[in-house]
C-alpha cells in the first residue's frame, strides 16, 4: 500500500504584487489509502495548500513547484483538465457545511446532479448510488434524500456532503477543517465515517485541521505547518512525544490534558 498518490514537492506560492511568499518549500506525500494530517493555526497556509491542489487559487498568485497526482503534474495541467480531476479523482469537504448544498433544492436531487455530471450513468443508477452512499454514512438515506439542507443538523449535512464526495469514488479526499463547525460528538461521528470509507474504498484522506486531539487519534502521519512552511512531519506519537521543532512544541503544549492523561513525555527526553 505504499504507493504514492499525491506528492507535493518544492511548492512555493507568492503574491504577484509585493513578492510576498505565502508558502515556502512545501513537501507533502500522501500514499494510497492513508490518512495524512496537516495541522497548524489559522493563517499558516493549510487551506492555501488545499486550494493549490484543487487548482482553486485566487487570482494574483504565482505557483512554483510540483504537485504530482498519479504522475500528472497539477501545476501544469489546464483548468479544463483540473476540473475533470476534481470530483472524479479528488473530493473536497469544506468547513462550512451550510455552503456545500444549495439551500432551495432537495439534497437527493443535488447529489444526483453531481453524480450525473461527473460520471456517465443514468439518472436511476445515480439515485441508487446516492441512496447507497447516504446509507454508508449512517444516515437515514430516504429521509435525507428527500430533505432540504435546512431540515438537517450540521453533523448530518456534513455527512451528506461527504456522501456526495465519495459517491464519485475519488482516490483522494481533502477535508478542510471539516469538523470545526461541528461539536465534539458530531465531529467524532463524521470522523468515524471518514475512517470507515477509507477502509472500505481505500481512498486516501488529507485531513486539514487545527484540532490536535483529532489528528493524534485519526491520522497515520501528520505534518505541522507554520507560516507557510512545513516545520515537522512524522507519526502521531512522534509529533506528540518526541517533537523537535519549537513551534511543534508550542502547539502541542496547547492541547489541554484530560485528568490523568499524559500528552507529552518530553521531560524524560530532556533528562
Amino acid at each position, binding site marked *: 500500500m505504499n504507493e504514492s498518490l499525491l506528492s507535493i514537492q518544492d511548492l512555493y506560492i507568492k503574491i504577484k504584487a509585493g513578492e510576498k511568499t505565502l508558502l515556502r518549500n512545501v513537501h507533502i506525500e500522501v500514499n494510497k489509502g492513508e490518512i495524512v494530517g496537516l495541522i497548524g493555526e489559522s493563517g499558516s497556509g493549510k487551506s492555501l495548500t488545499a486550494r493549490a491542489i484543487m487548482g482553486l487559487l485566487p487570482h494574483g498568485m504565482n505557483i512554483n513547484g510540483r504537485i504530482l497526482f498519479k504522475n500528472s503534474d497539477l501545476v501544469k495541467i489546464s483548468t479544463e483538465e483540473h476540473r475533470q480531476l476534481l470530483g472524479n479523482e479528488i473530493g473536497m469537504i469544506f468547513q462550512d457545511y451550510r455552503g456545500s448544498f444549495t439551500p432551495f433544492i432537495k439534497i437527493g436531487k443535488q447529489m444526483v446532479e453531481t453524480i450525473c455530471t461527473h460520471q456517465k450513468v443514468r439518472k436511476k443508477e445515480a439515485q441508487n448510488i446516492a441512496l447507497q452512499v447516504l446509507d454508508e454514512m449512517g444516515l437515514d438515506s430516504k429521509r435525507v434524500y428527500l430533505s432540504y439542507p435546512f431540515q438537517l443538523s450540521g453533523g448530518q449535512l456534513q455527512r451528506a456532503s461527504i456522501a456526495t464526495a465519495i459517491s464519485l469514488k475519488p482516490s483522494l479526499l481533502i477535508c478542510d477543517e471539516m469538523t470545526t463547525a461541528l461539536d465534539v*460528538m458530531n465531529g467524532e461521528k463524521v470522523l468515524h465515517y471518514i475512517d470507515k470509507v477509507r477502509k472500505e474504498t481505500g481512498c486516501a484522506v488529507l485531513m486539514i485541521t487545527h484540532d490536535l486531539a483529532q489528528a493524534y*487519534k485519526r491520522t497515520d502521519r501528520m505534518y505541522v505547518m507554520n507560516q507557510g512552511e512545513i516545520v515537522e512531519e512524522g507519526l502521531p506519537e512522534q509529533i506528540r512525544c518526541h517533537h523537535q521543532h519549537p513551534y511543534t512544541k508550542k502547539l502541542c503544549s496547547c492541547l*489541554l490534558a484530560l485528568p490523568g492523561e499524559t500528552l507529552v513525555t518530553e521531560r524524560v527526553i530532556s533528562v
Partner: protein
Amino acid sequence: MSLVVEGLFKQYSKQVQALNHISFRVNEGECIGIVGESGSGKSTLGRILLGLETYKEGSITYHGKTIAPRKRSDLRQFRKSVQMVFQDSTSTLNPKLPIWKSLLEPLDNFKEITPSFLKVEGLTRKEIAQELLEIVGLDKEMVDRYPGELSGGQKQRVSIARAISIEPSLLVCDEPTASLDVTVQVQILRLLKELQKKTNMTILFISHDIRAVSFLCDKVMVLKDGSIVDQFELSEIYDEGRHPYTKALIQAASIE
C-alpha cells in the same frame, strides 16, 4: 450556596424544549463547567441566568434573593454581581467605538462600584481603561484602537476585562474560546483561571470542549436535550457510574 436554580423550564415552541426542569446549585468561588453539544440548551441557560431571556417555570435564587424575570430593579441588583463573556470574538465589541469606550460601559452604569483591584482616585476614565487592559495582559496603548485592528484573542481579552471591571461575583462564559485559534484558546483559559484565583469569583463555563472544561473547572455538569444527565467532581471523571453520554463525550475528546 450562592446560586440556586430550581426546576427551570423553558420552551420555545411545543416541539422545542430548550430546558427541561433543570435544578442545580453553585457554591461561592466554584468553577462549574457546563458541557453539551449544540442544541443541548447550554447557551439558553446562560442567557436566562443573565436575564436576557425569560423563563416560564422554576426559580433562580442568588445569595438568597429570588431573581424574577422582567423585573428591572431586581435585575439591576443582580447584574451588579453577574457578568457574561460571549462566544463570538468578532461581534463582542462595537466596531464603531474605540476600545476604552466599550470597556467602560459597565463601570459607567454602576458608578457606585469601585473595583478593589484599581486605585481609581485621580485617574481619568481613559487611565482606568488602561489599567483594566493591563490586568488582562494587553498593551496600554490599545485603549484608543478600534476593534477592527485587534486580533480575536485580543478582543476576547478586552471583553473579559469589561466583564470583570465591576468585580462580579459570578461570571458566565459562553464558549469564550470557540472562535479562537488553539494557542490563543489556552492563553484565554489561563487568564480566566488566574483571574478566578485572584478575585475568587464563581465561574460558569459553558463549552462543548471537555478538555477546556477540565482545565478550568472543579465540577462538571453534562447537559443533553435540555436536561442535566450527569453532574460530578472533576476527580470522579473516570468513575464507573458516569452516564453513558458523559463517557461518549470523553471518548470523543480522547486521543486514544
